């Protein structure tokens, strides 16, 4: 199984969720994060002193999938989160050994 971690722009979250639903993925976990990369931060000003906020608000998506769907999922995220502008984010895919559904104790594929 795969553990997909995607860093995306916050306003792309809804479309990505829809895109994943269309390929049958109905579970995910989302975290607010701060991203640092090529995209430069916002210039802010406070009481006459300018400063740069280095980190930009991003959303981190974590989705566990079967190996079979993983590729599709990555593609779906890449295409839907894509705006073409700098700072669109990244997708990371890791191997996943085991999954347990807490409610039922089911494991692996059955737990997804």
């Amino acid at each position, binding site marked *: 199984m795969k553990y997909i971690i995607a860093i995306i722009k*916050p*306003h792309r*979250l*809804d479309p990505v969720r829809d895109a994943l639903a269309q390929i049958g993925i109905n579970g995910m976990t*989302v975290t*607010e994060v701060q991203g640092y990369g090529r995209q430069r931060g*916002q*210039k*802010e*000003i*406070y009481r006459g002193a300018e400063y740069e906020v280095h980190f930009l*608000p991003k*959303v981190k998506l974590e989705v566990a999938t079967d190996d079979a769907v993983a590729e599709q999922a990555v593609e779906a995220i890449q295409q839907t989160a894509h705006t073409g502008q700098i700072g669109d984010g990244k997708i990371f895919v890791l191997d996943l050994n085991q999954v347990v559904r807490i409610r039922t104790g089911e494991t692996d594929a059955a737990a997804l």
Partner: protein
Amino acid sequence: MISKFMPKKLFVAAAGAVMLSVPAAAEVSAETAYVFNTLLFLVGGFLVMWMAAGFAMLEAGLVRSKNVGEICLKNISLFGVACIMYLLMGYNVMYNGVDGGYIGTFLPWSADDAAATAAEGATFDANYAAASDFFFQVVFVATAASVVSGTVAERIKLFPFLIFTVVLTGVIYPIQGAWQWGGGWLSEMGFVDFAGSTIVHSCGGWAALIGAIILGPRIGKFTEDGKVRPMPGSSMPLATLGTFILWVGWFGFNGSSQLALGSAVDAVAISNVYLNTNMAACGGLIAAMLVTKLVYKKVDLSMVLNGALAGLVSITAGPDTPTPLIATLIGAVGGVLVVFAVPAIDKLKIDDTVGAISVHLICGIWGTMAVPLTNADASFVTQLIGVASIGAFVSLTSAIAWFALKATVGIRLSAEEEELGSDLAELGLEAYPEFGRGSQKLSF
């Protein structure tokens, strides 16, 4: 001797007896009345000035956090603009030489207190210090402008909004105000608007309505399939605080609109106004609470707050004539109106961020039309003429102003700026830099 441990009620009766035994002149002297009247304006003035804080907090609570700084800025700066414009011309356009007509003179205001402060032979016919009157009047202007800021929040550009405020407070508001309070044609006709349901609240409401239409809704407010996507306000306690501030300020707004405190008759009238103002707010909020519970199963706090304000706006045209129970009912009707007006305006795809159109325009009209119910001196027809003529005038002139701004400097933030939030776009700062910005995006 007055003993403090007597019960309240009885003690007062006793004190009354003491008073009567004093062989004093019964009347209020002319100079004393002058001081009382001036004091009434000053106390009323600081209370209404305080309403500016109420609008700021209400609106800060009802917009999303990325726009909170800008709405604070708008509310405090519109107050500044309104005061300056009213000084430069507004007051005299409204009060100087209207004489049954349509408009006064475009001149800066200045005080003339010579008669009352003459070293010898002072007379008190002016009834109050000139500046106290101006101070009281000027805080009303700001109220009208505050109504607009709430409706067009989260998408309008700062300086175009302030330019509109210049026009509204320097020209539009004073002209229609002249028709009634300046002794113009409407007042001659017998229109009744004690403290400004129409002249202040509806006036602001019309300007807001036209602004909202021309500006268009916030991005994402209405989905493609025609549904309304709520954008919950960032802080309910600030919205509640704002409502309470407005409520307190309203005692000045309505109470001091009696314009005199120099006699028992005036004192009685003002007391009735205070009580009715309070009861109408109570009626409005309780009605809104019960109706939202019935209709939506849950009680929407933001609606209850609007309900209290709806009650206050509703009673403002005639807080002097009803009994307290009737005042409660007039407020309650306002509270019900607002609960239905908010989704109705949403249905029309007009995006009113804080519900100001429902509260100030709709209830301003209702309040004005309700005056004849308890005031024999008022007639439905005249009230209707007043509402309609002011509505037409303010809508037309506002539309011209909004369109002129749109065609020249533009009135709307770019989509990108709106998405980012007006705080970062126009102020370059965040209202709550440490409280997890961006989270609002997770609500959908």
